[in-house]
Each structure stands twice: as C-alpha cells, then as structure tokens.
C-alpha cells in the first residue's frame, strides 16, 4: 500500500493503515533520532513522540514532500527541541552510550577512537549544527529541504553544516589522514 493511501485511510480512522506507516518508518526514525540524541533512551522517546505528533497532524501532510521526509522533519524538530532542553537542564557525557563495532584488535582500537571522536565532536556542535549536519549527511536531505524543515534560511543551514564539518575535520583529520 502506498504511503498516500495509508495516510488517507488513517485520516479516516483506520488504525491498521497508520500501523503500517509506523512499522515502515520506525527503524529509520530511530536511526535519525539516535544520531541526533546520542543515546538509545532519548532516541526511543523521539520515535514515540514523532509518531504521536504525526498522527495528530496527519491533515497537514499535503503530499508535496514524501511521507518519509515529512516524518523525518518531525523527528528532527522534536530532537532539536529536546537537545535544547537537555542542554539547559543537564550535563551530558561526551561519550554517550555509543556502542563500538569492528573487527581485529588494532582496527578495533582505531575504529573505537574514531567513533568516540565523531560522537564527542557532534556533542560540541550546536543543536542547529548537529541537526542540519545529520539531515544532510545521514539522511541525504538537500540544504533547501533542511532549511524549510527547520524554519531557517538556506544560507543559515549551509553555515551550520560548514561549521559542523569544520569541527569534525579538525577532530578527525589527525586520526583519519595521519593514523
């Protein structure tokens, strides 16, 4: 069943149609939320809240963007709000709970250090830098789409991405280009 049909049915009160959308996109939303939040618990909360908000506002999806893009926008915006709240209320660990994967002891150590640096650098980015970068780098959304989703200009989105890339480059270059 196509997303547009599932949305139309869900709007008419068909719970199974909405279930289909939840099952289709929950893993993707989790991946995005995890990259934004850096820990599983917050990412799980984002998944729940995203599908709850999407359900309440199904009438606002006009089909101009894909349902997937629309739901990722909701997830990104909610994560952004949550990051702002977290920043004000708690001190987060730079290491988060990022698990480490990879074969071989040397490569494992190196890969672990790289992953730790990526996580730590993303922690140092502002919420806007992190959101714009995650949407551009991992979700493949265009700068224009990200600007619309976050309610900022394309130029401001671009600058946020440049700053995030610059920080990552400074942190990772010694490990990646001169290991």
């Amino acid at each position, binding site marked *: 069943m196509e997303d547009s049909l599932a949305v139309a049915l*869900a*709007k*008419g*009160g068909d*719970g199974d149609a*909405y*279930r289909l959308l*939840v*099952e*289709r996109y*929950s*893993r993707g939303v*989790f*991946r995005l939320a*995890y*990259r934004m939040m850096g820990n*599983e618990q917050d990412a799980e909360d984002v*998944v*729940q809240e995203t*599908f*709850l*908000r999407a*359900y*309440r*506002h*199904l*009438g*606002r999806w006009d089909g101009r963007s894909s349902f997937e893009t629309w739901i990722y926008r909701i997830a990104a*915006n*909610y994560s952004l*709000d949550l990051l702002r*709240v977290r920043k004000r209320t708690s001190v987060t660990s730079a290491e988060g709970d*990022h*698990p*480490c*994967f990879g074969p071989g002891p040397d490569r494992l150590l190196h*890969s672990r250090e*790289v*992953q730790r640096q*990526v*996580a730590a650098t*993303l922690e140092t980015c502002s919420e806007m830098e992190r959101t714009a970068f995650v949407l*551009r*780098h991992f979700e493949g959304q*265009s*700068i224009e789409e990200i600007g619309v989703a976050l309610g900022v200009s394309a130029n401001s989105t*671009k600058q946020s*991405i*440049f700053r995030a*890339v*610059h920080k*990552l*480059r400074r942190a*990772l*270059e010694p*490990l*990646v*280009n001169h290991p």
Partner: protein
Amino acid sequence: MIDHPNEEQLVLYYYGESAESAEHLAACENCRESYQALQRVLNTVDSFPVPEREEGYEARVWDELKGQLQPLRPWYRRWPTWRPVAMATAMAAMLLAAFFAGRTTKRPALAETVQLRERVLLVALGAHLERTRMWLVEFSNARPRDGRLDIGWEQGVAESLLEENRLYRQTAASNGDYAVTALLEELERVMVEVAHSPTSMPERQWEELRQRIEERSLLFKVNVFRSQFENREAGRSTTL
C-alpha cells in the same frame, strides 16, 4: 589568477549541492588532495554506529503507541479546516445573491440588498468571534508539561482564524467601525504570535500570552461583541 575552491565549496561539492568545483579539481592536484582529505573525514563519519533494534521492533513501537492515539475526528467535524471555507462560501453565495437581486429587481431592492449584506456580515462575524472565543479558552486552559506546551492544534486553528480575522478587520475599518477594528487588531496580534511560535512552546512564553489575554480582557470583549451581534441580528430578523 586561479580561484581555488575553499573548504565550503568543497563541502557543497561533496554533498552534490554544487558542481562548480568539478572542473578545477580535475585540473589542480593540490585541491584534489585537499578534497580527498575532506572525503576521507566525511566517509569516516559514516561509520558512526547506530545500535541495531531487535527483531519485532516495529511491532513494539506500535504496541506502545496505539494506546495513546485518540481517534481522529472525521474531516467534516474538524471545524478549523472546513468551517471557515464553508462560511466564506456561504457569505460569497449570499453576497452574490444580494448582488444579483440588486441587478435583476427594481430600485427598492437596493435597500434590501444592503440589509441582507449587513446581516450576512453580522452572522459571519458572530460565528468568527465564537470560534475565536473557543480557541482562546482552549489556549488559556492548556496544561504545559515539563516546561513546554504542544500547541500544534492551537496553531492550526490560529492560522485558519487569522485569514478570516484580517478580512473582517479590513471590512470593519472600511465601514468605520473602530471598536470592532480595534478588537480584531488585538486578536490578530495574539493569533500571529501563536501561529509563528514553535510547536513546542516554552511554558514562560505561553504564560506571558495567557496573561496578556487576561489583562486585556480579550475573552470578555469577544463575548460582549458576540452577544451584541447576536442581538442586532435577532432584531433584524424580526424586522426582515
């Protein structure tokens, strides 16, 4: 002088947002090396791991979610979206009817046309104020959680009310009805602020707005004007 691409242009090229640097990179070894260094860094970021979800994760998400989903109201009961349209259509139809009545009947129909037009306006404005009253009550009685308030519903209504409100304010201003114009102006400021706020409104901002609504007695004024319109309309009904 050769213009070498800077880091920002290379980033745009990496993400396929601009092809400007392609030709230069093909010809300039230094820039190509610089681009490859950037490429290595950004490719490494892809290794940022995301923990795999267990099998049946999707079903678990749904199980946790389904109890929280309130049944959606069918489209014809969602007044924020269709009622203004229906109202505008009804108004337009009645005004057209009045216009054509004026064109196709003899002179005395002109007075009736004006009366009819005023009556339509009174009914429509009364209905608009009733919807605004309901919206103000909902907004003022909302309960923020964890220092924030989800105003998704209120925003949707504010956007739809805003359009109508502007129309009525302009009409009232052109008719020289200054009291109604002032009230609609005040309401418009609140509607604009709600419509342009983040969906998750900080509790402090909500509290400020709520206080403003209270201090300016907006609900009271809306009620007074609404009942005045109803009385005037009732008075006209008996004479028409």
